[in-house]
């Protein structure tokens, strides 16, 4: 499935958008390490959906707007993005930081959102569970912790770092810090408004997640009593990468029912 790539301007900010497939719209919001390429799970989802994968403001090839100061700015930006592209009944899928953004959008306005898929989302603090310190761990160790299968981590670490790749990773890291340094990876005011989310919610978590441990899912069970929660065995922080087939099947079953 071919993906097109273009710069879309919303709120004075150009974002790099990859888009492919046809069907109902599915907006994928990436996590802290960005979305620099079309991955197999995107291709697979594009068989059933019109898949949109933007690089967030401050990430990848997108602009770094002056107004970008916190996660709420991102939420308002993406609500404007949905309106600007006239997207409706969107399946909103967010991984990690992207899951946090998706929740921040949905507590504000679900009028263009059909359903919500949260993949090991950040954004909520769970008593007694600590995320890994992605800012203090050596970057190679963060990569190792992303995956359950060490071969996947080794393969990613073996990819040569180009000057452009280095610039992008420093840019992504900067924006992640801006949005999530303090409070660390959560918004203390988010949990109290989650009841406003009036669309079906699915939560997917890798059982062996060493960035945001799967114990977080127990807490989400209380916050989203009606949510469909799926724990994926032998899987780390990125179920859409590490268990792409299963992930896509789950999303299709959930969103197309």
């Amino acid at each position, binding site marked *: 499935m071919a993906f097109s790539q273009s710069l879309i301007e919303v709120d004075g900010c150009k974002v790099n958008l990859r888009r492919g497939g046809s069907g109902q719209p599915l907006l994928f919001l990436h996590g802290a390490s960005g979305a620099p390429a079309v991955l197999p799970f995107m291709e697979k989802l594009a068989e059933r959906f019109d898949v949109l994968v933007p690089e967030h403001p401050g990430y990848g090839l997108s602009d770094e707007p002056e107004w970008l100061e916190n996660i709420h700015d991102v939420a308002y930006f993406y609500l404007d993005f949905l309106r600007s592209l006239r997207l409706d009944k969107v399946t909103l899928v967010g991984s990690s930081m992207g899951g946090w953004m998706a929740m921040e959008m949905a507590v504000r306005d679900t009028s263009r959102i059909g359903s919500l898929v949260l993949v090991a989302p950040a954004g909520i603090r769970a008593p007694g569970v600590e995320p890994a310190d992605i800012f*203090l761990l050596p970057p190679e160790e963060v990569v190792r912790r992303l995956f359950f299968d060490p071969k996947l981590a080794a393969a990613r670490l073996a990819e040569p770092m180009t000057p452009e790749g280095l610039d992008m990773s*420093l840019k992504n890291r900067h924006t992640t810090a801006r949005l999530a340094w303090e*409070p660390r990876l959560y918004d203390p005011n988010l949990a109290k408004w989650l009841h406003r989310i009036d669309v079906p919610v699915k939560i997917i978590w890798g059982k062996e997640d060493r960035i945001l441990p799967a114990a977080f899912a127990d807490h989400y069970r209380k916050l989203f009593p009606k949510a469909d929660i799926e724990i994926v065995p032998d899987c780390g922080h990125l179920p859409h990468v590490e268990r792409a087939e299963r992930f896509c099947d789950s999303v299709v079953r959930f969103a197309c029912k």
Partner: protein
Amino acid sequence: MPYAELDLEAGRKNGTVWVTLPNSNFDPQVGHRLYNRFLDELEYGEQLGFDVVAVNEHHQTAYGLMPSPIVTASALARRTTKAKIAILGSALPLRSHPLTIAEEHAMIDVISGGRLISGFVRGIGAEYHTFGVNPTFSHDRFHEAHDLIVRAWTEIGPFAFHGHHYNLQYVNLWPRPYQKPHPPIWIPSQGSKETIDWASHPDRKYTYLQTFSPSKVVARYLKMYRDTCAGYGYQAKDSQLGWSVPVYVSSSDSKAIEEARAHFEAFRNVFIRMPLEMLLPPGYTSRESLKNVMKAKAQMFGDVTIEQAIDLGLFVCGSAETVRRVFEGHWREMRFGNLLVSCQFGTLPADLTRRNMEMFAREVMPALKAL
């Protein structure tokens, strides 16, 4: 003001004495002895004729026992009578409210009868980890806090201050500072163009203090400061330039190296050491500066011997004659009006620290003051 009796092996094993070294390594009994020893040494500095005694701020580390330099400076304000007291500096962005710094510095200035030199810093990268403050807002918070403090010191209140990070309906400082218009402001830095552009600006003309850097780097940044002033259309006074450097003086060059070796190398290779992610969190520096540090990583993060440090001019060590000659040479090149010498570093014990201070004060300082 290090925790000089640190189990160095524990520090080495942990990879750093910052942020993550468990505070079980701190013994309050030892701490009691060390605080009083260091305060005695600072007071002794005045007796020996030093013009300034200086303290600094670092958090949650065995590197320095002064999370609040306000406490040490306050103690010195009452126990000294002539020397200036320099706080180098207070880490503005780390405070939830910078007005507390305006108040505390003003108190020390009034108590000491106008002997305070106020230093402002951003705090080092590690402190953004320990304090949780977002490093990507560090510059913004620093500038806004600075503006609030200087206005609080100089404007008659009450007035309102509406910033992006700090907001007050009533700024009305009691006490106002003793010195007019306010205590001198010094900006300690490890070297940054942005800092130099800001500190040297004609509205400020703050003294720029290059800290613990190879002498070539010191020369480069002090020249950059002078050039920037010239670019602003004025000539920098020597008093706007300063250099802060560890120093050790003994009876001969070889004796000095022999006595200082273990203590300096502990300072350089254990107390200062930290990983890149701790030193430079995202946004603390520009991404270009960060990339330059990443390139120089091997050199910056490896061990340095005392001989290498002396060669680099990172450390000035030797007989009184050697130390005098080295500083005279550097002064001719750089014309720094202020020289801050760290006479204690790392694990250097009390007896050697005192003798170092005495020899520097009696056999080196008079010649340098005469320059």
